[in-house]
């Protein structure tokens, strides 16, 4: 990714993206770009190592399907463990955000 993400953030974004249903890699990257209104320019390839890590940890499962353009693609689906992990990551992320906000507040005033 070009706008540097904090380590592990990409995994969280993927989990979040998959919350609504199974998606294939290309769709995931499309979704993240669109949802962030192009603020997060993910170097698309880096999605795949992240997906492998999620697979390894059992937070997503993958199966081969067909894309809307009739191409054979692999779609990823959140597992219950992955859903719990997402919860933990969101909580952690919010704590982090809150911490950062507190530091930044004096500047605004």
């Amino acid at each position, binding site marked *: 990714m070009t706008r540097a993400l904090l380590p592990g953030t990409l995994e969280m974004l993927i989990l979040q993206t998959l919350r609504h249903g199974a998606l294939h890699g290309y769709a995931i990257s499309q979704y993240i770009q669109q949802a962030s209104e192009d603020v997060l320019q993910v170097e698309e390839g880096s999605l795949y*190592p992240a997906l492998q890590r999620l697979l390894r940890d059992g937070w997503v499962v993958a199966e081969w399907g067909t894309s809307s353009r009739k191409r054979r*693609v692999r779609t990823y689906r959140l597992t219950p463990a992955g859903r719990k992990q997402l919860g933990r990551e969101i909580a952690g992320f919010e704590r982090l955000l809150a911490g950062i906000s507190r530091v930044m507040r004096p500047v605004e005033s």
Partner: protein
Amino acid sequence: MNPISRWLERRRVERDLADEMAAHLEERIEQLMDEGLSQEEARIRAQRQFGNVTSQKEKSREAWGWNGMERLTQDVRFGCRVLGKSPAFTVTAVTVLALGIGMNTAMFSAAKAVLLSALPYPEPDRLVEVWQTNKAGRFMDVSGPDFRDWRDQNRSMQYLASYYGDQVGLSGDFAPRRIRIGVVSIGFFESMGVPAAVGRLFSREEQKLGGVPVAVLGYDLSQLIFGPGAQSMGKSVRLDGMAFTVIGIMPPAFDFPARAQLWVPQELIPDPSTRSAHNYHVLGHLKPGTSSRLAQEDMNVIATQLAKAYIDDKDEGIKVVPLYDEVVGPVRPAFLILLSAVTLVLLIACVNISGLHLARATVRAKELGLRAALGAGRPRLIRQLLTEAVLLAIAGGAIGLALAMAGTAVLRHSAPANIPRLENIHVDISMLCFTAVLSIGAGLLFGALPAIAGSHTDVNEALKQGSGKGTAGPQLKRWGNALVVGQIGLAVVLLTGAALLLKSYWKLTHVDSGLRSSGVFTTDLLLPARLSTRLLKEVSALPGVQAAALTDVLPVREGGADGDFEIEGTPLPADPHQDSNAYYRLATSQYFRTFGIPILKGRAFDETDDRSPEQVATVNQTFAAEFFPGGDAIGKRIRFLGFDAKPQFMTIVGIVPDVRAFGLNKPAKAEVFGDLMQHAVLSLDATLVVRGPVSEQAAVRSVVTSLNRDTPVEFQSMDEVIAGTIARERFQTFLLSLFAAFALLLSAIGIYGLLSYTVTRRTSELGIRMTLGAGRRAVLVLVLSEGGRLVATGLLLGLLGAFLLSRTLASFLYGMKTTDPGSFVTVALVFGVVAMLGCYFPARRASKIDPNVALRYE
């Protein structure tokens, strides 16, 4: 999961990953084309957005933890391919390493056998050697009566035994041979703590005057004379003609003292000797809980008492030395020198290969840049370079191990007999580990630095540069120069050491021994004394023989015995320490003629003297000058006090020149030659010397055996005998020269490698220079002077280092200083020539550059 299904699983995952990445790209391209881009533009944009495919795959694999093995196999396979593609580099590096490692392993194995391993006895730390010391603190053998007092009065020794080594003729139902024996007292085997492997050791009944003569055999000797596995208990052997019954065999490694092959009890023969006759070695076995230091204090008390009680013991002391120091001490300095030298060699080898690697890694900058561009991270590049280094080290280590095995075999067989325990070296597990650690360590050492330097490569820079030129920054270049200067310096130090030893050895071999040794052969023999006249007559009558003589002590090989003497008409001093002292040897009339020793004054003794009751002697120049400075030695009468039961006066009839009787590097001492024929002894344990062609040896042998079939006859030329006395010097000089020659070669390779690389790197620059009018000569000089500067710097540093270090060699040098200017100049010249040869070839290549080709070299 078994390896096969794991492999299948991985194949599947990798395929899936590749498929889905490809699908992703295609989706993107299609979408971009939908947005109106051309297919080509879409593809480029999609790829840019996706990033580096290889790198992403790599990271994905990392997620599964496969990369370790995967990358290692890859690195190894790739490393082998790369090394295979530059055979010159690979062969040089492996050879250098193999020789360095081989030499080190062999040398350290030898050091382990000789210096490090404990003495092969059950309680080596409790064994001590006890010496008597004279007023000057010089060690002396111990007199019989003193030994018996020590034994009875000490409180620190569990056992105290006396022993001495001797050489005797062994005969029986086998060919007679000369063997080394230990003549040992009660307590000797108890001290050593080693039981017999077969049979038994001496009983108290056998260890007394008039006991039944029995002998214990060494393992090797028993194999040799009775055959392997033969029953030898109870068999009879003759030692100098006297029959002994074999009662035991020692285990294979046991050969104390002095590589003894057989042991007999000392108590069989009476010891009437006095306190002034120093005949025995003394071995002590400390009581439990005692140290050699405490034992020393205990013995000091005894020494003080004895000094008060006996005039002979006045001013004499006792010194307790741990047996280990006694055995290893004399060779330790030489070994430490050789070990330092061989370590320097390995250091040079590592520096050398480090330099080779560095030069190569710099030239390879383009390749490395390309790999970085294709997605290899910096750690990965370092790993790759390290893998190559370790591959080289392993190959070098394996060949080095083979060399070391050959080397230890050579050392075992070529080592002089007076280096203790060297025959024990063998290739063992620890040596194997040593080699492995050494080779891997060397790999990391010479790999790490170049690898770190090499991986600094900036992708853009490297690719833009086109060729490898210019990618080596000044920093890297300086490092390369430092490596070359360093190895030249180290090599010069070694070379100087070798030059000093070589010169000293050369001087030693060209010392005038005072004997005309060539054309003389010799054998020890044992003969009833009454047959000696007949022996000499028959040998002298042989057609080729010019002269033959018998002597009790062979000059150069052995110094012989010294004793106090009295000059007729001069009263003896009250204090025996004030007596005149000289070395006393016996010889027959033709002795001087046989050795080509001229008579300076007077005459040699002859056959008339042999039959005359009036005893005669000749003396050497030193004796004449020392005791008769007025030049009036001839006609004077002297007698030695400690040798014969009834010493008679001998008339000095002649003066002979000095001979280096005590060794080539030792000055002559005062010597007296008595007429052997006038000193009737029952049995003659003597050495026969013959001036005549080697072809007469068979005839001489048959004369000797016809007189006594029990005596072993083992001929040696006198030159061999003399060479044998400097075997240790030869051994040390040979090894150090070998190391130095290798170091010289290495540094020549080093400078050659560096300059070749420089020339390659500067090809286009040199091309431009030549286009602009620089002549071939100018280019040659340019490159040569760059090399010359490095050589000169290294040479100066090395000579300076040698100047500082060479004093450690002082005790090994004969007749010269450690700062011998000739040696230093020679080293500088030899080194300069060889190193400049290393510079010349790259320089010539540079001068042959075709400017047209050079400029297209990009």
